[in-house]
């Protein structure tokens, strides 16, 4: 923030404190894609105590031709892989490796803590198909043992080995036998040449307690949907909460699941993971997606205000009222759209502010000063879009409004 903007902040804060110049505004009613909390938790997250103590605000320009998505769409995950975990005894007697295409890549990784198991070597793996055995690296291509993988900065666990099954051996049922393995081993099979894939998508990127997590999975051979013999799932939180769930077959060949979002609050900004496992005709697939989850402790009241002044310096100054149930550091942010010469609404600038708030009613400001509005190719009437209230303890989304406000600050 430059000196000029700092001075304006001081002046406007003084002016608004008197309410003499303020124009009252109301947020638009929440739409179907907006996020609005039903209830607020009064339990402060553990991480809230170690957050920044100083209030901070910041704004920056956006290009008027930027095309911004109103609401980010959840990603669809696709997998041609599966994982299994096997004991040393199982590996010594032989483990089945079903494949659906030639050239499967097999990774073997010790699953204990780093250094607790012996490093695995591809040349000690005996590969068998149709009664014929391949040892000493035969039947394999592109072998990389732990030494090469670690030197290449690949993040596989220490002691891992990777090899490609010789495509000349074709697809179908293989067996691997590993002599001298110690401890448990993760057997990871990736089939880059296979047409069989498992897709998974959640209906949102972020959920709040009390909501519903809707998942859709589909097992496909190319573009053709196929029935799964088994389809299961698991949700794991950053702090270790685990929830198993089942899918229901839908018309059209896909599978869906609906899970209550009633997990406990966690301080971590890490994500919840959804893992889904499927099998069909002996083939296996695992796929994962992720979402953010929070137990909200603050919300927007819907009341806001601005200063309807014509000033020499362009300024848009907004105050939003916030109800807080648990102490933390909260962040508010939004994108200011202006009206260009053709009458179209175009992005002008992004602003954020954050400060520590205790339980009670407060106001938070968004300031778009001369540093971002000078020379802007758009002006009033304005719109405030993608308004977000976030708890910085877990970066949890407390409230989001796609189109929050329409106003004219220079009226």
């Amino acid at each position, binding site marked *: 923030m430059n000196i*000029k903007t700092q001075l304006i902040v001081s*002046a406007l804060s003084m*002016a608004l404190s008197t309410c003499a110049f303020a124009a009252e505004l109301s947020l638009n009613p929440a739409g179907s894609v907006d996020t609005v909390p039903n209830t607020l938790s009064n339990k402060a997250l553990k991480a809230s105590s*170690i957050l*920044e103590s100083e209030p*901070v*605000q*910041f704004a*920056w320009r*956006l*290009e008027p031709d*930027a*095309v*911004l998505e109103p609401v*980010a769409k*959840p*990603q669809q*995950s696709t*997998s041609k892989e599966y*994982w299994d975990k096997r004991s040393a005894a199982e590996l010594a007697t032989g483990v089945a490796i079903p494949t659906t295409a030639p050239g499967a*890549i097999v990774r073997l*990784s010790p*699953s*204990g*803590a780093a250094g607790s198991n012996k490093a695995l070597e591809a040349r000690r793996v005996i590969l068998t198909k149709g009664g014929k055995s391949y040892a000493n690296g035969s039947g394999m291509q*592109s072998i*990389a043992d732990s030494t*090469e*993988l670690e*030197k*290449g*900065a*690949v*993040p596989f*666990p220490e002691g891992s080995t990777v090899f490609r099954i010789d495509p000349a051996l074709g697809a179908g049922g293989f067996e691997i036998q590993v002599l001298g393995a110690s401890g448990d081993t*993760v057997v*990871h099979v*990736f089939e880059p040449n296979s047409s069989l894939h498992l897709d998974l998508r959640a209906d949102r*990127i*972020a959920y709040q307690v009390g909501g519903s997590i809707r998942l859709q999975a589909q097992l496909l051979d190319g573009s053709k949907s196929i029935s799964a013999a088994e389809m299961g799932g*698991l949700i*794991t939180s950053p702090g*270790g909460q*685990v929830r198993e769930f089942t899918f229901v077959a839908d018309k059209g060949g896909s599978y869906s699941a609906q899970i209550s979002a009633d997990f406990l609050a966690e301080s971590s*900004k*890490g*994500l919840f993971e959804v*893992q889904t*496992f499927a099998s069909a005709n002996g083939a296996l697939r*695992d796929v994962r997606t*992720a979402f*953010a989850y929070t137990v909200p402790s603050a919300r927007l009241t819907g009341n806001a205000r601005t200063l309807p002044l014509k000033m020499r*310096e362009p300024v848009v100054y907004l105050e939003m009222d916030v109800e807080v149930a648990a102490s933390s550091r909260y962040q508010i*942010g939004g994108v200011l759209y202006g009206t260009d010469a053709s009458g179209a609404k175009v992005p002008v600038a*992004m602003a*954020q502010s*954050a400060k520590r708030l205790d339980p009670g009613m407060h106001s938070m400001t968004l300031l778009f000063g001369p540093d971002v509005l000078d020379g802007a190719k758009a002006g009033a009437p304005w719109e405030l879009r993608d308004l977000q209230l976030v708890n*910085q303890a877990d*970066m949890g*989304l407390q409230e989001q409004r796609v189109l929050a406000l329409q106003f004219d600050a220079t009226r």
Partner: protein
Amino acid sequence: MLRVFLALLFGLAITVNAHANRGVAFIHGTGHQTNALDDYWQRPFVDTVRGGLANSANFVVINCNFEKYWWDTAASGCLAAQLSSFISSRGITELTMITHSNGGNVVRWLLSNPTYDSRYPNIISKTRKVIALAPSSAGTPLANATINGNVFETSLGWLMGYKSDAVRQQQTHWMSTYNARNLFGTAGRPALPKSFTSMVGTDVRTAVWSGNAYCGGYHLNLGLEITHAWLDTCADGFLNCSSQSAAGSVWFRDFQRASSGYVLNHNQSRRDCFGLPTLLRNNL
């Protein structure tokens, strides 16, 4: 009355016209670095790049724990402390950040969340641009493969902690969520407050007869050959080109500007290979 007050305040405002004092920061990727100058970048690389500054002493090599989540005090907190100290002690007014791999994500966290830490706004204001070498902006399928999908193994992984938070974050489905929620600069999202341009590595060459295979260490490059199997045809052995291009804008793809049209695999994009440091020096 308000207008009068503002006019008085503007009258007091001092316009500062100082000559730019440029500096460069080298920001490593995943890992806990204590001597990134020698262990991560190597001196020939750093010395060539900083030679492009009017004052070649205006550089800092960051040493932080980027095994942690970006927002951790040991990661972005450490980065903010070292950058703030550098800016203050050297009087830097225009900073170029050169990042490699996940270092680009840590910087993008800082640029996207300027109110998270009171040191961030000053750092952002002083930043001229970010040059991201092979940034993992959309994650990598290799991180997905590492943090595997087995029920018991995943549960164990959380407890064991040997799979670093940084690797977990660079899974493609995690990056997709963070890019949509907490980070800016990707398609459909607001731009970052400062320019973020990437150098994209497109291939790994390990043929023994290829001059492209040896720079940075032949054996280091061999491991990237097998991992390429998890990736698209266009990839640097660790990251797909699409991930390296996902945030900001692309400055160039390796073969477009590297000497002899060579590619830069994920190890080579932080080393004195094929004229890369000279390209950076000339772009400070």
